[in-house]
């Protein structure tokens, strides 16, 4: 069937924050990334950040493409290296507000070492980690967050490995704000972003997000809607939950909420000026 209808783009409340000349984006129908990015941008708007001093940094992968759609100073860097790049940028100019927006594979696999060290140093930045349990950009391979028995193109008979419990990982490393929400919890997500942006130090929000194209299709939730329903009806809010209880297992409830909200010494040191 031949169609020549061109979508008219514009008039969206977030246009001010988007490079509309780069739309439509590359994300699949049913993907949760638009929801997470929307919540991030609304949170930036709500917190009244100086947009000229707000920077978005992404690594590689589906989530990594976010930086390219945002009309701020934005960096799309190497796979896994968004955090150390962000660390250098923040230390060079402490006046910048840094938001790292990247995926579970980027942040927790290839960038895993940087993740724990950025949390340990408590570098002042907000990290949005979109967890879709799979490598989407490369076509659906096993990741460090794929649940046990989860099927992917490289674990066709089910994942034999235990996945990371990301809140426990970054919490143990020293992150001072740690939360987990899903794309079915848009208000809570947005509020968490607002809180995280307001905090000084390393804040980390894991966002459980559907990837119907790969994870859902291979794990009996073939549409984004099915995955969203699952998150809607199988999530349990437990603020301050024991980090040990946050493992994610197939067909089991997902514990969400704000788990850590503490204060401690962070980098760059208070009073640090540009280049100091």
């Amino acid at each position, binding site marked *: 069937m031949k169609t020549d209808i061109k979508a008219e783009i514009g008039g969206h409340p977030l246009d001010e924050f988007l*490079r509309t000349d*780069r739309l439509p984006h590359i994300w699949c129908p049913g993907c949760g990334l638009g929801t997470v990015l929307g919540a991030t941008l609304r949170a930036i708007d709500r917190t009244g950040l100086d*947009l*000229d*001093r707000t*920077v978005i*940094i992404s690594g590689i992968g589906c989530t990594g493409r976010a*930086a*390219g759609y*945002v*009309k*701020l*100073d*934005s*960096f*799309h*860097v*190497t796979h*896994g*290296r968004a*955090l*150390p*790049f*962000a*660390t*250098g*940028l*923040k*230390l*060079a*100019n402490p*006046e*910048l507000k840094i938001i790292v927006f990247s995926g579970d594979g980027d942040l927790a696999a290839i960038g895993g*070492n*940087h993740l724990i*060290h950025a949390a340990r140093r408590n570098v002042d930045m907000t990290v949005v980690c979109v967890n879709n349990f799979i490598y989407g950009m490369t076509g659906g391979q096993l990741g460090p967050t794929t649940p046990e028995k989860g099927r992917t193109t490289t674990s066709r008979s089910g994942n034999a490995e235990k996945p990371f419990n990301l809140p426990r990982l970054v919490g143990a490393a020293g992150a001072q704000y740690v939360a987990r929400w899903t794309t079915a919890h848009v208000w809570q997500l947005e509020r968490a972003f607002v809180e995280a942006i307001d905090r000084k130090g390393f804040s980390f929000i894991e966002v459980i997000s559907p990837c119907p194209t790969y994870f859902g299709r291979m794990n009996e939730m073939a549409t984004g809607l099915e995955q969203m329903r699952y998150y809607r009806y199988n999530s349990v809010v437990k603020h301050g939950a024991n980090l040990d209880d946050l493992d994610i297992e197939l067909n089991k409830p997902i514990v969400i909420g704000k788990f850590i909200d503490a204060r401690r010494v962070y980098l*760059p040191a208070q009073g640090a000026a*540009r*280049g*100091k």
Partner: protein
Amino acid sequence: MPEKGRISGEFFLSGDEACAEGAIAAGCRFFAGYPITPATEIAETMSERLPEAGGTYIQMEDELGSMAAVLGASWGGVKAMTATSGPGFSLMMENIGLGIMLETPCVVVDMQRAGPSTGLPTLVGQADMMQARWGSHGSYSIIALSPSSPQEVFDLTVKAFNLSEQFRLPVLLMSEEAIGHMYEKVTVPPAEAIKLTPRRRPNVPPQEYLPYVPDDDLVPAMAVAGEGYRFHVTGLTHDERGYPANTAEAQDRLVRRLVDKIEKNRDKIIETAEDGIDGADIVVCSYGISARVSAIAIERARALGMKVGLLRLVAVWPFPTEKIRQIAANVKAFVVPEINYGQMALEVERAACGQAKTVLVPHMGGAVHNPETILDAIKRAAA
């Protein structure tokens, strides 16, 4: 009144310490690194000296992170560097590639030790020279400098920063353990006597700024984060807006410019030091510590009545192809001592184009050449 943290005068410094002082004199105010002998003293010196000069030192979790942090700092508007040795240099290749692609000024020091792998910690080597040129994936050109003394480490570190700002790329200082750990007199000129190249800033309003519109010399002006330009840059092949452009045409346009901005400006970058090349039958072509050892061998050869010249590569990349080709027409042979099994010798041979033979004097690393070995090679080449 000297600027805060600045020193000037005469000092007894190691190559590593001279490197740190050169960086500070060049305006470097950010260092991210990971300990590795024989470059550790650069990090140690920077951790002391940078805060005095109002800068930041951070020890990262590895060299992948170090290089990424250096790029981040540079985009924050601060001159930035890192220093490492072979094993760390290998890890840095990933983000050196990003630095090339984003066109990010910064300096990377490789105090070479013998490899492969962990190799000889920590004895001298010069076997990262081709890695410096080709080590990151994809097509690009690079600038690498090779000092022969602690004084020259100081001078070339300053120059490396200037070149990195002029051409917007990571510039490599390819030194080696023998120079890094060598103590000699180093003269640090007063600040006003050191010429610094400022960053090429955009001269258009933010809304008109496109990150990759080049000037006539193929180098674009660079905005930094936080100044309202709201730019996007990516390691993906991109167009002049900095937007990903997934086509062969965009690739052709971008990669040609990344290479040509160095190759078409070769004359501004290439630096050699020559001694007695006119009328020579044999020219020894070397760099770094090996050029110093070569000078001893040349002196002995001249004492035997031989006509031997020295061509020292101060900038090793881009390679002075035209100069070597010119010399090749008038000499019998090039003798190339280097602490590897033949790297820059391949370039000399290529440049000589069959007009003169190339005699490699290899050393597998762990020590510098015995001058007699080089002298023997000179005699063989002359025979």
